[in-house]
């Protein structure tokens, strides 16, 4: 493992932040104080973080309805995110977007997206911007196994190849689209789809940060070097329901318990880096504590933050009208 220490600590912190953010949201959602739909990324942290570890603010990502993890991995602050999810004026979208629409274009985060398959076309365009503006950046579309069946996603694979733009298509395959298994809904397979649209296919274990980090590095390098797009297929699992409130009757009773016990990317990470002598347990403990405080503070602040003002309703529909 040839990974710089600061990447390791940053990535762990990022994964831990996502985990705590999501676990806390799960608790807070149950209080009834969080409005709207909330889709948790818990369990999938290594994917977003392993990919984004290769990106800077110049690079662009587009996310999904399950977007909190990608946002945090791309550097969006948890204070602004939490406030947004609570519908506060201090939210990163001023309370007008909510969980499904968190975005920060200054960080290259082109938005969570309430529309399945909404992101891949946008990423073709962001990649085109990077190519045209010659800024050396890449654009990454995260999308789920379910989204891999949307026409907009499939068209985008072809378009990115035809244009030979620096795009990476990251299929986060958690085996479900809502309550339907990928084994039912995804005919064929992602590998042949990549070939069918003329791009290389990479595959990795999404429970293992190092597997993601390494493979994503290759896929992103391929794109960044001007060789056109690549597909990265990440195998992972979500630990909660499709959205908060989902009783998950379609999953085996012990499925999530097993995942938590055996495939926790944070536990995996700790075992590996401590085992290899790259970081100490205490380094990670320090991060854990810091993150815990950060999330607590974010929730407290969000709950206290002022609500949007009436005049906000009519603001920002247009730049000018």
């Amino acid at each position: 493992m040839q990974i710089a220490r600061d990447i390791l600590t940053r990535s762990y912190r990022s994964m831990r932040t996502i985990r705590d953010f999501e676990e806390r949201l799960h608790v807070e959602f149950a209080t009834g104080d969080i409005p709207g739909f909330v889709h948790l990324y818990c369990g999938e942290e290594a994917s977003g973080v392993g990919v984004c570890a290769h990106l800077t603010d110049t690079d662009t990502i587009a996310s999904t309805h399950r977007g909190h993890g990608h946002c945090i991995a791309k550097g969006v602050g948890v204070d602004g995110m939490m406030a947004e999810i609570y519908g506060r004026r201090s939210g990163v979208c001023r309370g007008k977007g909510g969980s499904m629409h968190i975005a920060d274009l200054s960080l290259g985060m082109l938005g969570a997206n309430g529309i399945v398959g909404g992101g891949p076309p946008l990423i073709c365009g962001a990649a085109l911007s990077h190519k045209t503006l010659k800024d050396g950046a890449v654009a990454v579309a995260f999308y789920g196994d379910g989204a891999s069946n949307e026409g907009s996603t499939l068209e985008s694979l072809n378009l990115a190849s035809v244009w030979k733009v620096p795009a990476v298509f990251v299929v986060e395959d958690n085996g479900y689209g809502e309550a339907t298994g990928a084994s039912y809904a995804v005919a064929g397979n992602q590998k042949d789809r990549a070939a069918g649209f003329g791009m290389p296919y990479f595959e990795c274990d999404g429970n293992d940060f190092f597997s993601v980090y390494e493979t994503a590095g290759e896929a992103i390098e391929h794109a960044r070097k001007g060789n056109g797009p690549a597909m990265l297929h990440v195998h992972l699992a979500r630990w909660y329901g499709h959205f908060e409130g989902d009783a998950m009757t379609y999953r085996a009773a012990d499925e999530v318990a097993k995942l938590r016990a055996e495939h926790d990317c944070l536990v995996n990470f700790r075992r590996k880096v401590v085992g290899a002598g790259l970081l100490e347990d205490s380094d990670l403990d320090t991060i854990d504590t810091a993150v815990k405080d950060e999330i607590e503070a974010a929730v407290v602040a969000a709950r206290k933050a002022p609500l949007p003002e009436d005049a906000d309703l009519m603001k920002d529909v247009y730049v000018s009208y």
Partner: protein
Amino acid sequence: MTKKSFRQAINEALRQEMQRDPRVILMGEDVAGGRGGTSGVKDAWGGVLGVTKGLLTEFGEDRVLDTPISEASYIGAAAGAAATGLRPVAELMFVDFVGCCLDQIMNQAAKFRYMFGGKARTPLVIRAMYGAGFNAAAQHSQALYPLFTHIPGLKVVVPSSPYEAKGLLIEAIRDDDPVIFLENKVMYDDEEDVPDDPYTIPFGEANLTREGDDVTIVAFGRMVNFANQAADRLEKDGISCTVIDPRTTSPLDAATILDCVNETGRLVIVDESSPRCNMATDVAALVAEEAFDALKAPIRRVTPPHTPVPFATVLEKLYVPDVEKIEAAVRSVAAYRVKEEA
């Protein structure tokens, strides 16, 4: 006659029609749920808000078809199946997703019959949820019935209560044209008495939920309830309203609307959809053309502003028309006196 929720009324309409006619099938994302899942539980969801629950168990996987997340293909498939002998009821989940499949609705299903010189029948129903009030934000809260109403070849239904929903959905399923059936997601738990037996409510026949002398209110879907509440309050101040629920925006019962406006001379239209080119403008234009002489006051429209639907509760509340806004609009037209009279 039993108390049933809006959800139950729709479920019952589907069930009874599926019992009656083996060609009626359902399809959509997670209309059953559980396929490919590890628990083996079938009918795990029965629709994202449980509306189609139980139908898989009763009718089996050949008649309740879960689909991949690919609206263009399965809505198109529903159109193709309708043109070749089945009577599909396809669920689009949120009507906002029409952006992913509009072609199959607008250019295929809606136009077959005309383009083909009358030689096609497309008995297709597309069910979808619409409306704000769920903090579901800009991409999951639109009303969009004006889009469908604009398109010749489609029929568009916006039921206002459980009773209406059952009768209109059965009618939709038996209808031989493509029908868009829109369910306000905030109303699923609303209850009222609904007959147990199947019944139909014809399209293009408005329902007068109350009759009055002073002001006509035309309202759509969930707004009918708000209009009635406003009318209750206004009654106390001596302003008596007719409230019209057109039930279907296409066909529209123009005659009833015109008759009522000819009586009251004053009109308020309540429409939850975005204000430009919507049903409020449609009805206003109808009346300004065909009941002009009867009009004693400007036609007032109560609609959301021209913005996407905001997420935060405070903003969303401001966004959706409510009883207060309707009341204020009615008062203003009731109080209006044309200059000549003044």
